[in-house]
């Protein structure tokens, strides 16, 4: 029921794949590990893959908004993809898509950020 987080780097893009449930308890750890990844690796843009995220509440929104602001402050982009209907309800209700971009899948997100869309490791 807890949260699994996987990071991958593709050229200058950090891909964050979330799996499980993102609540206040998980938010603190996620924030820390995510910030660490953003400071490494010469990463610029971010893709958040929500495909396997089955639950999220407003503590999750806080983490997303926090990272979005950091990325945007450096003139870079953050794109969400592969959202499930469960999690989409919260994003719709809270108007998050007026701020962040949402695309269907990782391939589209990579393309949007100018990364050649071949196989991802």
């Amino acid at each position, binding site marked *: *029921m*807890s949260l699994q987080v996987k990071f991958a780097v593709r050229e200058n893009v950090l891909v964050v794949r979330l799996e499980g*449930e993102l*609540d*206040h*308890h998980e*938010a603190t750890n996620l*924030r820390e590990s995510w910030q660490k990844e953003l400071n490494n690796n010469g990463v610029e843009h971010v893709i958040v893959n929500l495909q396997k995220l089955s*639950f999220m*509440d*407003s*503590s999750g*929104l*806080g*983490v997303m*908004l*926090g990272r979005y602001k950091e990325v945007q402050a450096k003139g870079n982009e953050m794109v969400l993809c592969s959202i499930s*209907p*469960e999690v989409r*309800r*919260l994003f719709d*209700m*809270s108007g998050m898509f007026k701020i962040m971009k949402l695309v269907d899948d990782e391939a589209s997100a990579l393309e949007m950020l100018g990364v050649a869309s071949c196989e991802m490791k």
Partner: protein
Amino acid sequence: MRNEMTLEFTSISENESLARVSVAAFVSQLNPTMEELTDIKTVVSEAVTNAIIHGYEEQKDEKVLLTCAIDDGEIEIIIQDRGQGIENIDIAKEPLYTSKPEWERSGMGFTIMENFMDRVDITSEPGVGTTIRMTKQLTSTRALCN
């Protein structure tokens, strides 16, 4: 027929998922839609998180009290803390208002509760604690009443 559960637990963030899972298991007797179940898990998570971080300011030896009752397809959820209470409820309810921006709170908790439930009543007294009472009629049973 009325069915009731009361869950009391230590005020630590590990128990946020316990609260969601228990309420979800309890209300699933009413065959809620996937959307309704998600809404209910979300509002429970919001109110319990608030009790832990705002009510008790992360003191780990307090208790959160959760009551859930189902009666003819109506769900009533009450979440209570004996924490520091809310000075001004009208300000607290405003979308995006948070007293803890440094903790990356989004200030959307109450807005989400009010959107996902039919009714939300907040009772709070500084120094005494906060009680959130929420109700929701499930659509499946609402249709049967017409």
